[in-house]
Every structure is written in C-alpha cells, then in structure tokens.
C-alpha cells in the first residue's frame, strides 16, 4: 500500500515537473514514517483480530497460545538474513547507478524500493521455510 502510494506520487511528480529533490525527500520521509506507523498498527490489529477469531472458533474465553518457539525464531532469523542480503544487493545497485552518473534521487528511490522488496522476499523466504522445513546451519 505504501509502495503504491510512493510509486504513484513519484510517477506523478516525474510526469508533471520532473524530479524535484525537496519534494521527493519529503515524500521519502512520509513513506518511511508511514511504514513504521502502519507496521505497528497492523501488528496490534492483527493480534486483536486473531484473538477474536480464536475466541469465536473455540467458543471459550481462554488466552490463545500465540507463543514463538525456537523453530519460529530460527525461521525468522533466516528470513531476516535473506532480507538483509536482498537489501544489500539493492544498496549496491543503487550506488552503482549513482557512480554511473544518475542523480542522487534515483539512488535514494532505489534504496526505498529495495527496502520494500527485501521485506517481501524475506517474508516469502519465511513462508517457504515453514513449508519445506528448516535445519540448523
């Protein structure tokens, strides 16, 4: 959703007035702050919805066992590693574009884009590990 907002504004700005650094940096800050706030809000809402769904499904008032055990932590760590590598590659690509003479705005935009892509790939990697199984090492 945030990525769509960012890309929509970016394309609109590009078509209308070209890349204006002051505006795009403001957009960049909005995207990052909105990302953090929405993540916190999303986590709280997800927990509330899951608790309600659990209560309805089990017809009890007991606390659901949303525990994170060692396997979850291992999978999360591996997912974060995948996301980190993806983001590192993205930063490298962004820096290469800058070295090749592109404006700094392209570099910053690529960094924002790759941070979102890295999050998505990290989550996909976690889903894959939950399905396939995971081993230490």
């Amino acid at each position, binding site marked *: 959703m945030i990525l769509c907002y960012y890309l929509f504004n970016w394309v609109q700005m590009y078509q209308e007035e070209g890349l204006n650094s002051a505006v795009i940096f403001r957009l960049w800050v909005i995207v990052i702050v909105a990302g953090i706030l929405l993540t916190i809000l999303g986590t709280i809402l997800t927990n509330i919805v899951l608790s309600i769904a659990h209560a309805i499904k089990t017809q009890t008032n007991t606390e659901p*066992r949303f*525990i994170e*055990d*060692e*396997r*979850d932590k291992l999978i999360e760590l591996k997912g974060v590693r995948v996301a980190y590598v993806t983001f590192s590659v993205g930063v490298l690509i962004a820096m290469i574009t800058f070295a090749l003479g592109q404006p700094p705005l392209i570099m910053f935009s690529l960094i924002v884009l790759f941070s979102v892509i890295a999050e998505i790939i990290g989550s996909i990697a976690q889903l894959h590990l*939950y399905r*396939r*199984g*995971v*081993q*230490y090492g």
Partner: protein
Amino acid sequence: MDKRRVTNNIRKLRFHHNEMTQEQLAEQVGVTRQTIIAIEGGKYAPSLELAFRIALVFGVPLEEVFGYTAEDGSA
C-alpha cells in the same frame, strides 16, 4: 563424512502415553503444535534443550526418543 539425519519415535511414544495429542505434548514442552508436527515429520531437528524436555515428558532417555542414523538406513 557420511550423511546422517535425526530420526525420532515421538509418534510411537505419544501413542504409548495414553494417546497423547500433539497439542498436549506441545503445551508440556512449551512449543507450538506446528513445531511438534515438524519434528515428527523429520522437517526440524530440535535443540538439545527441547529434545531433553520431550524425553522428560515421556520419562525415557534421550536415545529412546531420538536417533541419529545414516540416510541409507544403516545405524
């Protein structure tokens, strides 16, 4: 080094302990049912501490719960 993998008898042990469910075992050792399913299915090798906790629930030595056998089936 020959290839080995961690095997287990959890399903059999659960059956011999009043047909204990995966959920009950999970609660007693403090993990999710999904983790017990993954261990039973050989998709996850637990930590040493969790392995000991599982053995403790069944009241048997660790070797009776887990094995470390060669992939070709030899011991």
